[in-house]
Structures are given as C-alpha cells and as structure tokens.
C-alpha cells in the first residue's frame, strides 16, 4: 500500500494499519469485494446522471454535459482536526470581512503600512463603485469556500480564500446523499456529522443580511447566468433546496426603487439576491455594458440600500492571489490574533528579488496567475517539460506582476477505489463557511477534491479531478 512514502497518506501511515479515523472503514472494506464495490461505483455514476449533477464543458463544438467523477472511498477527518480547522476558518472569514470593509472605507491597513498601497491601487479586483458602501451587518462575503491542503499529521495550509462565488457545495451535499443511499451501514458504524442542513443554514444566513427596507420575511432569490452556465445544476439545486426562486437577469427589473422579479402575479421585490453571476456581468449600466446576464441599475438600488447582494460586488479583492500572500498580516491586523491556519509561502513575482528566486528555481515551484482560477494558466514546475518551463519563463519575465509562485506542496493522499483496489491520490479540501451578522457557521466537512490521475497534484474538475464524500467524525 505504501506507494510513495514522501507523501502523507491520510488512511494508511506505515505498514498495513489504518490510521485511527479510518480503522473502522478499513475493517469494513476488507470484508467487501472490490468487484462489487466497483459495481456500486458505476451505480453511483448512473444516479448522478439521472439527477443531472453535471457541468457543461466549454470549448467543444457542441456543448456537452459531463459528470464530475465521484469516488466512493470517504475522506475522514477527526473531531480534533476539525475543531482546529473550524476555528481557523472562522477567524479568517471574520478577518476577510473586516478587510473588505476597511478597503472600501478608510483603508487603515494601507495607512498603517501593513499592505503596500499599490497592492490595492493596481488591482483590477478593487471596485471603486464599492467605496463607502456598507452592506447590512458589514458582511461583504457571505459564502466563503476556503481551499485547504494537508501535508502532514498536523500540517494544514490555506491554498486560496474563495470569497467571491465559491462553487461545489452541491457536490458536498449530493456526495453525502449518494453515500447514505449506497452504504447506509457505514453510517451506523461511524458517527459522521451531518451536512444536510446547509441549505437551511444558507437561507437563514442570507435572510439575516436583509436590507433595512425589508420589514417582513426576507424574499431571497438565486441569480444564475442561465442553463448554459457550467454550474447551473448547483444554482438550481441550491434554489430548490432553499425553497426560493432561481432567477436570471431577464426576470428582474428595477421597480419602485427595488429590484423585483417578474412573477405570474406581477413584479415582486427581492430582499437578498444570492448571485452566481460575476461582478463584471452583474449590471450592464454600471459594469460591462455588453452583459446580457445582469440587471441594469441593480448596483444603484444596492447603493441606495434597496437590496442585499451576496456576495457583495468587489469581494474579489480579498481572494486575489497577490493579496493572499498578505493574509497572515490581514488576520493579525483585524483580529489581533495570530493566524491559526498557515499560508503557503508565496513569492510575489512583482518583487524583483522574489522574481529572481522564482526564475532560478522554476522546476521546483508552482506558479499561478494572480487573477486566475480553475487551475488554468498555472505551471506545476516538477511536472512541466523543458519547453513548458521555457515558455513560462518568458511569460514571467514579460509580466512578473501577473504571477505568484509557491513551493510544490507534498499534498496528502487518500486512497481511491482503482481497478485493483485502493490506490493513493492527492486531495484538497474546500469547507464552506456562511457569514452573517449573527456569526460564522462552518459546515463540518466540505468538498474533497481528488486528482484521479496517479501522481497528479491538480484537483480541479476542469483538469480531470474528482470528488469524495468528506466525513467529520463526532467526538
């Protein structure tokens, strides 16, 4: 089993004994037939297809719907590990909201010299239209998906703070449903904390951020770019599970000083809009005039206090990869505490010394675009060919400010069910946090993404990654 000892495997340490949280699962697994489990695995796939948990793939001639592969071996986290992660995420989410409020007001953190002015001034994610805007409860990012990686027994790092529109929570929920459906016995043998309350928590959390004009039960709606968007399934799923309307820009209009949706009975005002449309496309009158996905004037209504937009426009300034490198300072500045969760050491290529180091050590590093996401436009040094390295070197020299670099982390592995049985694959973890004036709630577990290709470190679904159910055990 111990395939490559330089990686921390979360199930098997050394020898054949499973680590504590996996001991019961390992026992159960040894009594199962691999062929039978593989059959169950294809059943799960059929179930996902039927439910329609697919994502659309772009760039093909005809739009196709694909499944994100699901692996039936759970990823298991102990109560103690989770308690630490939960505390760390809570701290981070509070700090990020304080940071966003500050950045769009007095910028004390810049005045205090903790972040260089140009990190904000030269950042496209900074939205001048948000200056002076204080959303209800000063919550800017209501839903955060913090990407974590593990490298050892007690070694967790934050890889990214997704503070604009983190996705994937529907997989967290559907993966659990599927596991409950296929392996009910596992859940009577292991005390796994539930995740199914997420939609209710989300609705409660959003409702708590209703604007002052809302006097009764807040009307919540989910804004989607439409059925062709790659995450449409998730948008529909969340609206459905919360019991709220799923709207598109063309369903909405500014009426009587509110943003209202066209219903069969006329226009009905919305109090809180959980939008899954990027800032740029949100309001053709205030942002990209070519956008057909947005609502003209919604930003004006927002600034007048007529609607809450979750997450707020301009939150991208907090999950930008260059700002990321300042997160330890940010956490400390706003909470007065040391950051509980560690940052991955990051070289900002905009700084000449850092750039030199990165260029000298390119084959060992991971280089990312400052504003990129989804694993696109990144270089994994150890896996790159000479040609790729040379091409990236040129890009770095041309526009160093566009890149940051990090050491290639030894991501932990968790076994997947491969043809011949269990085989270790690299994973990350995206827990989901909900912020409202009432506090921060973090759903135990999250989405475990797994690189299905042997040795691969890229877990993104657009790059051949899969997902696992994530268990947080009760104490």
């Amino acid at each position, binding site marked *: 089993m111990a395939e490559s000892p330089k990686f921390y495997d979360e199930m098997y340490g050394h020898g054949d004994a499973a680590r504590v949280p996996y001991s019961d699962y390992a026992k159960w697994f040894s009594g199962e037939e691999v062929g039978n489990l593989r059959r169950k695995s294809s059943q799960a796939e059929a179930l996902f297809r039927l439910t*329609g948990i697919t994502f659309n793939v772009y760039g093909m001639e005809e739009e196709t719907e694909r499944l994100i592969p699901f692996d039936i071996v759970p990823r298991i986290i102990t109560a103690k590990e989770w308690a630490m992660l939960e505390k760390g995420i809570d701290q981070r989410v509070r700090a990020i909201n304080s940071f966003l409020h500050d950045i769009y007001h007095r910028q004390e953190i810049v005045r205090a010299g903790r972040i260089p002015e140009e990190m904000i001034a030269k950042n496209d994610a900074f939205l001048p239209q948000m200056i002076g805007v204080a959303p209800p409860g000063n919550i800017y990012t209501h839903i955060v998906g913090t990407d974590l990686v593990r490298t050892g027994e007690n070694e967790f790092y934050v890889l990214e703070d997704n503070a604009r529109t983190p996705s994937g929570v529907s997989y967290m929920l559907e993966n659990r449903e599927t596991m409950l459906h296929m392996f009910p016995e596992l859940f009577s043998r292991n005390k796994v904390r539930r995740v199914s309350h997420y939609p209710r928590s989300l609705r409660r959390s959003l409702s708590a951020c209703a604007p002052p004009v809302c006097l009764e039960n807040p009307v919540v709606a989910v804004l989607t770019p439409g059925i062709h968007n790659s995450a449409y399934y998730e948008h529909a799923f969340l609206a459905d599970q919360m019991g709220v309307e799923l709207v598109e820009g063309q369903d909405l209009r500014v009426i009587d000083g509110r943003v209202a949706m066209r219903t069969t009975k006329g226009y009905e005002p919305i109090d809180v809009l959980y939008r899954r449309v990027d800032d740029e496309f949100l309001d053709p009158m205030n942002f990209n005039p070519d956008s057909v996905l947005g609502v003209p004037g919604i930003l004006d209504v927002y600034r007048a206090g007529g609607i809450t937009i979750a997450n707020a426009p301009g939150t991208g300034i907090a999950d930008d990869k260059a700002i990321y490198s300042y997160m330890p300072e940010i956490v400390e500045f706003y909470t007065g505490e040391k950051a509980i969760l560690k940052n991955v050491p990051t070289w900002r290529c905009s700084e000449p010394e850092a750039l030199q180091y990165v260029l000298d050590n390119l084959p060992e590093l991971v280089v990312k675009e400052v504003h990129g996401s989804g694993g696109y436009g990144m270089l994994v040094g150890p896996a790159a060919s000479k040609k790729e390295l040379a091409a990236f070197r040129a890009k770095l020299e041309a526009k160093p400010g566009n890149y940051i670099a990090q050491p290639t982390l030894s991501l932990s592995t968790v076994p997947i069910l491969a043809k011949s049985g269990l085989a270790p694959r690299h994973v990350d973890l995206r827990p989901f946090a909900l912020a409202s004036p009432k506090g921060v709630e973090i759903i135990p577990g999250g989405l475990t993404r797994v690189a299905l290709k042997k040795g691969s470190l890229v877990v993104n679904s657009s790059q051949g990654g899969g997902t696992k159910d994530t268990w947080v055990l009760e104490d």
Partner: protein
Amino acid sequence: MLGKTAGGVFWMLRYMERTENTARMIDAGLRISLTRSSAAESEWTSILTAMGLLSAYLEKHETVEGGKVVNFLLRDKSNPSSVMSAVEAARTNARLVRTALTREVWEAVNECWMDLRDLLARPVREQSLPDILQVIRQRSAYVRGSLHGTMVRNDVYDFARIGTFFERADNAARVLDVKYYILLPSIMHVGSASDNVQWETILRATSSARAYQTLHEGEYDPRMIARFLILDKRLPRSLAFCYRKISDNLDYIAKDYGDRMPCHGMVEKICHRFETMTIDKIFEYGLHEFVTEFLSESQALGRQIEIDYRFYE
C-alpha cells in the same frame, strides 16, 4: 412563481405531449403501411401534412417513403416536432424550471431524454420501431405519473396541465383539419374499405380507436367519429374535454390569485361553444370552418395566457 417558470412548465408539458403525439402519428402511419402498402405513401403524406411538416420533409427528401418519414419524425433535429427535438426541448424547459419540479418529475423527464438519446443515436430500422414506440409510451407515462403523484396542486401544476391539454387539443384539431374531408357526408361511401382505413388513422393518431370501439360498439360512422373527437367529454383527447380541463385549471389559478384575467373570458367563450354545439350544427356550419376557427381562437388564447401570466416580458 416566476412568469418565466410558468412559461417553462407550460412548454415542458407541451413538448412532452408533442413527443407522445408524434410517436402516435408514427404508429398510425406504420399500421397502415403494414396492412395496406398501396395506401402507405398517401397516408405518410397526410400525416406529414397534419403535422405541418410536409414541406420541411420535402426539402430534405425527394420521395415520401416510410423509412425516411419515420426517421424524420423520430430523430431529425432540424425538425422541431421530431420526437428527439421535442423531448430535448421538454428537458431543456425542465432544467429551466428545475426548482418548480419535484425530483421525481425532473428525473422522469431526464431519464426519458437519456433513454431516447441513446435509442435514437443511430437511424432506426423498421424492426426496432415497435420497441422504440413502446419506450416512448412508457417513458412519457412515467413523467405523467410522477407529475400526478408527487406535485403539489398549485399554480405550477395548473400551468403544467394547461400545457398538456393545449398541445393535445391543438394536435387533435390539426388531425381533424387535414382529414376533415373524409368525414364529410358528401363524399361518404358507405362501407367502403378505404374510408374505414382513413377513419381508423384518425382514431389511431389521436389514440382514440379503442375508446371509440368500446363506446360505439364497433360501428365506424364518420359523423360519430367527428362528434367523438370534438364534443365527447368522456374522451380525454376530445377538444371539448381538453378545453374543459384548460378552463378548470385557469379557474384554479384565478381562485388562487384572486384575480380573473382576459384569458378567462376567452376560454369561457370557447367552452360555451362546445356546450351548445351539436355535431349536426357543426356540419351545417362547415366542419373545416369550425376547426379552422377553433385553431385560430386557440392560438389567440395561448398568446393571451402568455401575456396575462407574464411568461416573457
């Protein structure tokens, strides 16, 4: 509910109904081509005409042949009424209104689409046709069943029902519109075998053959067939039945919303006509004229519903 959702549910069920209707038309055509190969070409032609697809078909094919017509009606994506196009449109609408549907309904529609997509991926040969038609029947019955069994009886359900009956009445009226002349007394040849077959086609295309036999003791009589398809409220595919249902469902919405709209007056007028008409009066007025008028009133009603319940702007 959103106006868009009302429109999406309405169209999803229209397309599901259309899927079935097209399959039924193919079944009717197939039956004749099997029993009377000499009449096959003209029957396929009149089926294409009834569906308003003859010119679209002839743009792609030079001759009317069973195999080509069947594939055109089953799987040609350029044909918006083909089974594949209709079921795909039904599913797209279902995705659009996913939050208004129960998981069961969505899965039934999705599975219908997945099965047909696989079955219709390649040209269909004659011997596999009965199986495919069977799958279409079963899959759409499954959608209907999940709709009845799991949906809350609210406005969403009402719009779904209105979509179903709207498409069904539309389809029946079109069949009558194309075939009206064989039901006219003037050209009636008593006992003529050819007419029997044509009459049977009408009944098969509207899935009413068996019901007709039961209720009319097996006697084919064109006047009775016309009465049956237009006025008989026991037949779930007659115009009168469908419009009673449309009217009922629009009434539920009016009661629910506490507001009657212009479409209510329109549907009432159409229903009233069915209440007071007899088949003799219809023949006196002109069967063709009656059906044509019905079709245009029904289109106007459809537009009015769209406006009253804000399907679009």
